[in-house]
């Protein structure tokens, strides 16, 4: 097995020289943060990822969480690792200082989260879900609920979950049936079955705080009648101590394709008199509350695409340097070399490296824009809204492809579990599904973020204008002019698909939706290509200023590869959007 090493140089380059860490640190509220501090944080987080989380990743795959009589036991070693995670304070990195957090910017937590996801995605889901629950409670719950639950959750002593899905309510949350009966003292009795609850039950902490979507007896039908409840595993007394066990139980955990270390629970609420819960915010507004934290959650899952690609790449690269097979073309047959010397293996590794860097740059860029939006920048807010489904959908789709390439590099051994490449591939497979499938992300992108905007297409056109400015800069530099041309062509393809969608969305919504996923991938490739091109410009400036750091020549190489090997797909996707829907929908349902 290889050992995960955080790609510090690329992370720091993107944060400092592309995403604008220094400027993010200067935003109001981030006074504690500085470039040097972030360096230290990354350094120590990397140590934790390599020393604590990476060694138990394969253990979690082989020896996943188990459930017996409602008690879920985490993978051996996970509980101790989680305790260390809490003791070292990592859980509180992004949380508000008001509740004991360190209040560091999203850009910083994004880089740190990438390390957790690379080293142990199944483990990382637990604090990720807690983070989402913290955000929902912090933004929408009453001061009493916040004071009672947040300090323990920020610390990580209690974890959080999201209970949305039910057997007949998946992507369609309007179909939710879980019932909530008002008790009359401000509390509610909750009953119903929830499925796919990540880390819904476990033995790592003394309490678990479930956020549950449910309906009141008099609730309006559909999504306008959904409320959000806080339902703790153990009731919490007024002095903060733990009281009676609440009426909720884990019925089973799922047998899954991957992330075996993360227990995916079927939760049964209220099999007795009903689980006690407290409403978050106002009744019937639950779905809106869930959406306010969606941006972070979706970027976080997109980051899993980055993390798993990086891990799979490192694993494949280590093997390609070691595995000796055949002599490279044009050399003596007896002079056998590691497979890294063979052009097709080089192609695979370059593809993994370049596309992973593009994804990372996009995710960090959006994270920095979230920080700017948080400080009140409206243009950044619009950019975040536009690109969030792209980070989620594009990065996770690529994560699967690249983890598959990671298996391929190993040849026959890649198909053997002991080699370890399979795990990344299997783990990656969930990422395009949970937190909204790629299809849902794409519908969000072409609908709410584009055609159904108040001023349709304004956010995308603002992005295209920025890309045009970068194209001009690239073309002014003879060395980078080729990238400029490729980016220009990609941007033109995105512009024409955008125009087509805006013109046709109302009149033929089905045709537009049939091309939604190709449009999402098109946006991802052009946005990723744009940021890689910007990275190349930075690298050129550094070299011109006298830097001999080989990182910069490497960055120009990966940017050049991305422009010449990924941007050409933009035309194909654009054609699929603007002219492909008729063929997609041509076959009558009964003829399938």
């Amino acid at each position, binding site marked *: 097995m290889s050992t995960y*090493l955080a790609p510090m140089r690329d992370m720091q380059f993107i944060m400092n020289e592309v995403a604008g860490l220094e400027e993010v640190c200067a935003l109001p509220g981030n006074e504690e943060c500085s470039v040097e501090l972030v360096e230290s944080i990354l350094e120590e987080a990397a140590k934790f990822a390599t020393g604590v989380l990476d060694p138990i990743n394969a253990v979690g795959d082989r020896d996943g969480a188990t459930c017996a009589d409602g008690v879920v036991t985490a993978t051996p070693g996970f509980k101790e690792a989680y305790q260390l995670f809490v003791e*070292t304070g990592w859980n509180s990195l992004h949380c508000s200082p008001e509740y004991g957090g360190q209040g560091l910017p999203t850009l910083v937590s994004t880089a740190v989260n990438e390390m957790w996801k690379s080293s142990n995605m199944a483990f990382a889901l637990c604090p990720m879900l807690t983070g989402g629950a913290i955000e929902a409670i912090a933004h929408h719950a009453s001061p009493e609920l916040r004071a009672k639950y947040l300090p323990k959750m920020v610390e990580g002593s209690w974890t959080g979950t999201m209970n949305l899905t039910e057997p007949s309510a998946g992507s369609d949350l309007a179909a939710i049936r879980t019932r909530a009966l008002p008790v009359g003292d401000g509390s509610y009795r909750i009953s119903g079955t929830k499925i796919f609850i990540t880390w819904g039950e476990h033995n790592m902490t003394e309490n678990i705080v479930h956020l549950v979507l449910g309906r009141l007896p008099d609730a309006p039908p559909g999504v306008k009648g959904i409320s959000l409840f806080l339902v703790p595993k153990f009731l919490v007394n007024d002095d903060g101590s733990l009281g009676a066990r609440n009426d909720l139980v884990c019925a089973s955990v799922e047998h899954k394709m991957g992330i075996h270390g993360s227990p995916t629970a079927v939760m049964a609420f209220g099999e007795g008199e009903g689980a006690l819960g407290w409403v978050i915010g106002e009744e019937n507004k639950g779905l809106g509350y869930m959406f306010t934290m969606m941006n972070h959650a979706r970027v976080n899952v997109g980051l899993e695409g980055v993390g798993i690609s990086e891990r799979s790449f490192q694993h494949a690269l280590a093997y390609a340097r070691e595995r000796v097979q055949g002599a490279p073309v044009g050399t003596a047959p007896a002079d056998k070399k590691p497979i890294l010397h063979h052009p097709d293996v080089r192609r695979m590794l370059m593809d993994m490296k370049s596309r992973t860097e593009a994804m990372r740059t996009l995710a960090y860029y959006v994270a920095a824009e979230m920080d700017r939006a948080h400080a009140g920048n409206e243009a950044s807010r619009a950019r975040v809204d536009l690109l969030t489904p792209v980070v989620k959908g594009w990065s996770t789709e690529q994560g699967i492809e690249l983890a598959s390439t990671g298996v391929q590099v190993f040849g026959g051994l890649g198909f053997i579990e002991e080699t370890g490449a399979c795990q990344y591939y299997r783990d990656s497979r969930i990422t395009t599904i949970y937190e909204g499938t790629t299809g849902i992300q794409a519908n969000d992108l072409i609908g709410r973020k584009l055609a159904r905007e108040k001023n349709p297409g304004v956010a995308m056109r603002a992005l295209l204008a920025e890309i045009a400015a970068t194209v001009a800069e690239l073309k002014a530099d003879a060395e980078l002019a080729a990238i400029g041309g490729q980016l220009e062509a990609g941007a033109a393809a995105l512009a024409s698909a955008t125009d087509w969608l805006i013109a046709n969305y109302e009149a033929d919504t089905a045709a537009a939706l049939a091309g939604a996923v190709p449009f999402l991938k098109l946006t991802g490739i052009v946005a990723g290509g744009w940021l890689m091109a910007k990275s190349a410009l930075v690298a050129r400036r550094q070299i011109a200023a006298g830097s001999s750091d080989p990182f910069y020549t490497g960055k120009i190489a990966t940017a050049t590869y991305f422009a010449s090997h990924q941007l050409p797909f933009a035309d194909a996707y654009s054609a699929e959007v603007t002219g492909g829907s008729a063929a997609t929908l041509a076959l009558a349902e009964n003829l399938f």
Partner: protein
Amino acid sequence: MKVLVPVKRVMDYNVKARVKSDGTGVDLANVKMSMNPFDEIAVEEAVRLKEAGTATEVVAVSCGVAACQETLRTAMAIGADRAVLVESDAELQPLAVAKLLKAVADKESPQLVILGKQAIDDDSNQVGQMLAALLGWPQATFASKVVIADGKATVTREVDGGLETVALTLPAVVTTDLRLNEPRYATLPNIMKAKKKTLDTLKPDALGVDVSPRLTTVRVSEPPKRSAGIKVADVAQLVDKLKNEAKVF
């Protein structure tokens, strides 16, 4: 009691070292760098001495390029109180480092200098010993246990035959072996506090030390690849091969 902890920035121990194709050294391009693991053990020991009330101040010191600040911040995140960087872009060999550390020790007047027994990059295993000689202090190398009491350090050393315990009168130099302790993971609040701690930068010239190299690297090469094994027919052949080929008797 003040404790001085010299730390070195080296290639991370998880990185598989690759020799540059021209044989001039190890390829450090885009390679993750970290604190020398033996030095990390030294920092941990010093911080434990402080936590136990034995030490009053822990000062970390590093000699090398500006990026060594990162290594010093790591030491401060673990618990060192402040740090000194002796900044130099020159190649610093063991004798030069020992002289620089002597100059720093003269300024700081610590009772104890504790550092790794060797750095994992060049494995020289010389700085601690040279420093003790330059200072004229007693030394205990390869420590697996350190007890400080009544102006003395009682140090258990890992030697070939087993363990040896020596008592040194302070001030003294101690170098750490692997089993002395298990370094902690720095906590996020301590990482944040570390940035408020003082990090002073000095130059070799200001310390009056000539750091010019005394040694020349002739060639760096990878260890020979392990060749395939063979099957022996019987015990007699095995003994014969051990005796005549491997020459183990």
